[in-house]
């Protein structure tokens, strides 16, 4: 991904417009954004939280298997999770965004710390090139703040 494309994807001030640009870029590459997950709590959708010093909009929350209320933010998904997947040629795995709630509720726990929990999907998938992979979801809690979904990425399964 060239700096020009990053600049174009991140130029609009409105996060919805940035999301539309990412969707257009993905469509051009043969991928699409998945629909929102159906098994998440959207009662706080639209609420604003301050995360690491930035205002973010709640998309949904999930109570994970450790009883933590984990928030997923629209700005973080667009500006960090999606952009990183595109940057690293992992846009093919963006379809798994909808799997975040079930992984937090029923996935494998690889590491559980005071400020970070690392999840792995129980399900093994087959990648475009025939390699097996699982989906890694990492949630974090900055000091004094809420738990939030920090990232989602595919992990090569040996």
């Amino acid at each position, binding site marked *: 991904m060239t700096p020009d494309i990053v600049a174009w994807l991140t130029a609009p001030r409105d996060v919805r417009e940035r999301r539309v640009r990412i969707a257009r870029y993905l469509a051009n590459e043969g991928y699409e954004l998945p629909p929102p997950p159906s098994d998440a709590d959207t009662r706080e959708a639209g609420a604003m939280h301050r995360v690491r010093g930035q205002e973010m909009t709640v998309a949904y929350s999930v109570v994970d298997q450790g009883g933590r209320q984990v928030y997923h933010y629209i700005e973080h998904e667009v500006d960090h999770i999606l952009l*990183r997947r595109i940057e690293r040629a992992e846009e093919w*795995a963006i379809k798994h965004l909808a799997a975040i709630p079930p992984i937090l509720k029923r996935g494998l726990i690889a590491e559980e710390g005071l400020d*970070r929990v690392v999840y792995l999907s129980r399900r093994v998938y087959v990648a475009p090139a025939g390699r097996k992979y699982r989906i890694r979801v990492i949630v*974090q809690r900055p000091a004094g703040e809420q738990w939030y979904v920090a990232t989602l990425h595919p992990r090569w399964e040996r």
Partner: protein
Amino acid sequence: MGRTLHFRFDSFDNYFCLMFDDRPREPTAVWQDDVYEYRFHLIRGLRTGEIKGFSNDGGDLARDYERLMELLAEHPVPGQYDVPDLGLTDATLSEIITAIYERYVAGRAQEPVYPIVSDVVPTLQVADRPADEPAD
């Protein structure tokens, strides 16, 4: 001259991504994240199996730096690389990550914090005469 890595840093969560400039484009996935306690991983091409780059997605370099250096000493990533964005040539991965840490995390300028003394704005006091004016 080592292979050239393109560098990007995201200060939101102290994320870095180093990708080989000359890499053929192919789908990638994270590899060896458990070896580095999920603080760092190699990015591997799914078709060729080649290493395409390195990142700490899901970690936080500010929090993880010291432990990550220990892990890289225990499990070194071979090779020396050029990172023009950081002004580095023939640098090891540990040297590159140290440069990122020193420049973007430890060396980051702190935002000034102004103490809030009171919510009440004092009214302007007008002296009878300037303090340095001699009395009659």
